[in-house]
């Protein structure tokens, strides 16, 4: 009898040790699976995707251009395609190749997302679809242009939903059309052959132009041929988006790249084609005539040409490509969710963490597994964060997108610390949900375009980005954590019997501690922001909405602390005040951006406004629950003894 007990205990110990470990190893393996890609068959889109271009003021791989553009146009990173009754998925790069090299096919892909019924009605589009093709939109371009010319003069904050959605559509159609001519002039079929003809026409054409200018007899045909080419290339020069062609002159600055049109216009003067143009033309021709081997050879050839000449740019593109394929934030999100679920179950698994009886303890096993998974997710999260900093050469927070990632990162650390101290699953729930929610928010913020855009002149200072922005963001993160702990207190107290007096007390202590922490960071961050403002335009405090938002957090945290010290609130009151902290923080993180004044305005805000209101409503509802008389709570009821 005694012996089996010991054996049970031993096997329990083994399970306790190994199950979390196995879970972590499995999830880590999945997270790293992006590293090993199956070899490409057909057109090597991935190799093409690694080629560097200059766009939005920075070097990036074609792959990033594809992902960011498709996110803006379709809000997804892939395009499902129906072919012969089967559904095939195009990656962003597959899609962009088609757009740039075979627009006739791309124009039929349903990629333009339109959510607004008034817009679909205006454009006479079928309203049973979410995505429309360029060919469906083409007949309505005049109508769109007519509307846009009116809407442009309206301040963006004063536009109706219909107006801003139509502007958004116009913007993405514009982006799409500019991408279409980024590697191939409009109307050109065999681009490589066309380039040959162009190059041959230059000497006689230039002679004709010169003769004409000198008032002498000139060759009209040669003149017309050259001008025909130039007219077409001029359009490309004005509208092609990414700068794809590197300078061949080693004395030029390394970022003096041109788009293909500008470069071809210049060729008329120099008479020499840039090798990059030739490689790209070969790719276009091979792609259009369905010759994967030729295409792949041209990609490899161009890459080989770049090595030595543009090694840093090539490396930068490779790194960013690696980062995008690994998708660390997506992987971390999934693992956070898994951990959150395990941690939540641990509360109902029977037996508390303090239960040291040698019986098998499911609750503790779940809690431990959750904790290890959160550590794993956090490591991946950290890797993503640090890799982004490395790619950008910037401190962690540079825009709203990266603030979401950083707030989540900081909140997860706080959650892990709480878990390490209290070992009751609460820290895991906090960390899991904070990581998951903030990364989802970040994902949605990424829909408005490149998340690594260059910093405008005022913001171009790593010192202030590293101090002020980081401190304020940590202030946000910790205020949210305090509010979230308070939510756990109220929901567990009202709806379950799991909130024991002891748990309640430790939650109160956690909230108090985190509010102190939040006060420190939000105060220091806010004042540093003022000092930055003093450094950059001589005004420490200007009552700008973003400043006021940060000030509100400081004031509110100070209110909570003083109310607690003065005995004005006790445990429950503290919780309700902390939840108001959530509302205050969400207001200053997002709300102030929606006021439509100040420097900060973002395109996607219509949808975000709805979510913000929902969030504030939910917090208010939880506060109301918290105000319910204690006898209506399921926890804290006097136990009836049998």
């Amino acid at each position, binding site marked *: 009898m005694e012996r089996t007990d010991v054996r049970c205990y031993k096997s329990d110990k083994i399970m306790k040790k190994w199950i979390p470990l196995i879970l972590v190893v499995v999830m880590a393996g999945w997270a790293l699976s992006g590293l090993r890609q199956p070899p490409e068959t057909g057109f090597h889109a991935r190799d093409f995707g690694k080629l560097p271009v200059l766009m*939005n003021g*920075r070097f990036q791989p074609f792959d990033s251009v594809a992902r960011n553009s498709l996110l803006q146009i379709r809000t997804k990173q892939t395009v499902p395609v129906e072919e012969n009754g089967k559904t095939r998925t195009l990656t962003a790069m597959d899609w962009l190749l088609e757009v740039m090299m075979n627009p006739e096919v791309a124009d039929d892909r349903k990629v333009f997302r339109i959510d607004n019924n008034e817009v679909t009605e205006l454009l006479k589009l079928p309203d049973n679809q979410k995505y429309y093709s360029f060919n469906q939109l083409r007949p309505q371009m005049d109508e769109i242009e007519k509307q846009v010319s009116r809407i442009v003069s309206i301040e963006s904050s004063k536009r109706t939903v219909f107006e801003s959605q139509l502007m958004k559509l116009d913007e993405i159609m514009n982006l799409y059309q500019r991408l279409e001519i980024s590697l191939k002039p409009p109307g050109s079929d065999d681009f490589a052959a066309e380039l040959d003809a162009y190059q041959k026409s230059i000497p006689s054409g230039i002679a004709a132009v010169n003769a004409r200018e000198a008032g002498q007899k000139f060759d009209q045909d040669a003149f017309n041929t050259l001008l025909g080419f130039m007219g077409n290339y001029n359009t490309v020069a004005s509208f092609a988006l990414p700068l794809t062609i590197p300078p061949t002159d080693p004395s030029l600055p390394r970022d003096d790249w041109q788009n293909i049109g500008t470069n071809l216009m210049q060729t008329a003067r120099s008479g020499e084609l840039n090798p990059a143009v030739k490689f790209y033309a070969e790719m276009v021709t091979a792609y259009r005539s369905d010759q994967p081997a030729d295409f792949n050879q041209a990609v490899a050839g161009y890459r080989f040409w770049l090595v030595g000449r543009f090694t840093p740019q090539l490396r930068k593109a490779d790194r960013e490509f690696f980062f995008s394929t690994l998708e660390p934030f997506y992987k971390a999100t999934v693992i956070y969710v898994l951990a959150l679920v395990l941690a939540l179950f641990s509360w109902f698994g029977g037996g508390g963490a303090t239960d040291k009886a040698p019986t098998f303890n499911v609750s503790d096993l779940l809690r431990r597994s959750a904790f290890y998974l959160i550590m794993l997710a956090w490591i991946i999260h950290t890797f993503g964060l640090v890799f982004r900093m490395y790619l950008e050469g910037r401190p962690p927070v540079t825009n709203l997108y990266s603030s979401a990632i950083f707030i989540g990162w900081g909140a997860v650390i706080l959650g892990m610390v709480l878990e390490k*101290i209290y070992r009751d699953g609460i820290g895991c729930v906090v960390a899991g949900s904070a990581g998951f929610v903030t990364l989802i928010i970040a994902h949605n913020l990424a829909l408005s375009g490149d998340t690594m855009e260059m910093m405008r*002149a*005022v913001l171009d200072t790593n010192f202030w980005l590293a101090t002020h922005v980081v401190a304020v963001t940590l202030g946000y993160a910790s205020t949210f954590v305090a509010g979230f702990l308070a939510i756990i207190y109220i929901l567990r107290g009202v709806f379950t019997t799991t909130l024991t007096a002891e748990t309640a007390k430790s939650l109160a202590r956690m909230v108090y501690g985190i509010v102190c922490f939040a*006060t420190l960071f939000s105060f220091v961050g806010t004042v540093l922001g003022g000092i930055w403002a003093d450094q950059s335009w001589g005004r420490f405090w200007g*009552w700008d909405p973003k400043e006021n938002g940060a000030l*509100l957090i400081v004031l509110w945290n100070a209110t909570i602390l003083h109310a607690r010290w003065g005995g004005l609130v006790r445990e429950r009151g503290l919780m309700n005040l902390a939840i108001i902290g959530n509302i205050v923080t969400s207001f200053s993180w997002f709300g102030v951006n929606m006021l439509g*004044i100040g420097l900060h305005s973002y395109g996607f805000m219509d949808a975000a406004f709805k979510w913000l209101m929902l969030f504030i409503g939910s917090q208010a509802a939880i506060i109301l629950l918290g105000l319910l008389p204690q006898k209506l709570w399921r926890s804290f009821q006097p136990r009836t003894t049998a």
Partner: protein
Amino acid sequence: MLKSLYQFFSSLKLTVACLVLGCVIVFWGTIAQVHLGLYKAQNEFFRSLFVYWTPSGSGFHVPIFPGGYFIGTVLLINLFVAHFRYYQPGKRKIGIMLIHLGVVLLLLGQMLTDYLSRESALHLRIGQTKNYSEAERAFELAVFDTTDKDSDKVVAIPCSLLVRRGEVNDPEIPFTVRVKTFYPNSLLVQQSQPGFEPVKTTAGFGSGIWWREEPRETEMNRMDMPSATVEIVAPKASLGTFLVSAWLDRPQSFTCSGRSFELLLRQERYYLPFSLHLIEFRHDKYPGTDIPKNFSSRVRLQNLENREDREVRIFMNNPLRYAGETFYQASFDPDDHGTVLQVVHNPSWLTPYLSCVLVATGLIIQFLSHLIPFLKRRLQ
């Protein structure tokens, strides 16, 4: 009575009440900016003792909520009295002391800044030299004595005097300026339009101009354009009524007692004891985009008093601090051939820096003095 007052002013409840009111006013003032504009909301909510409500169509102003100054002052009194009441010597309270000292310094520093600081702008084209900056919102009526071509004697009458619509005398000028009409913000047109009245003048540019009073500007990036009619009254006779306006950029001349004068309503000027000369302005963009990468002005600073003469580069986040003034890169001309420097005179600019250090130190001490014992207990 005194005792209960003492207790009231030192109570933590008052602190909490002030903080909550502070939150409300900050939130309200932020939302109000959507309609009022930043400048007006700032004055009505934050730089005021009370927030007033004006029932529509009436002239009353009913105070309905304490304003920023009121709350700030009560909070300051509360802090002082509470420290006096609860003060205990020793190490235990040092964190709290530092935090509150820092907050007091911050609040006082900001109130001082509101009263003492002065902002103006210095617009320079490439190759231009100036020894003055111009107010962004305040105007003055400048009377130039142009009798002697070599000297430029100026009497400047600030708009705050014109608003009173009375008479202005100055020993330097042999006449009285009588303000007949003054519009703090106005619009001028050159032909009759509904809503506009003809300007009643007897001399200068005014004939054939119609004008209208405009509501005061509330947007931060736009300014009032005042206009006025002024009569120049010499000891013996009136020399005529002139239109002066921010819209007119050329001076109007007249003679009086054998001396010649010019009149011009211009942005108020603040003279500097040194001069700045713009050598070069740069506006760099990131390749292939319109995103500004850098704005910078290379200027030559010349101070005749101490014969200082050197080149300085002023760019974003890197102002020039000199002789109590700070010059910031603020804006530029559309053709990139001129720069606008913001000139700030703020004697209390250092207070936030000090306050930040004090509060941060205090908070860290306070935080660690709780956290370390707690962790020790917990981990034992």
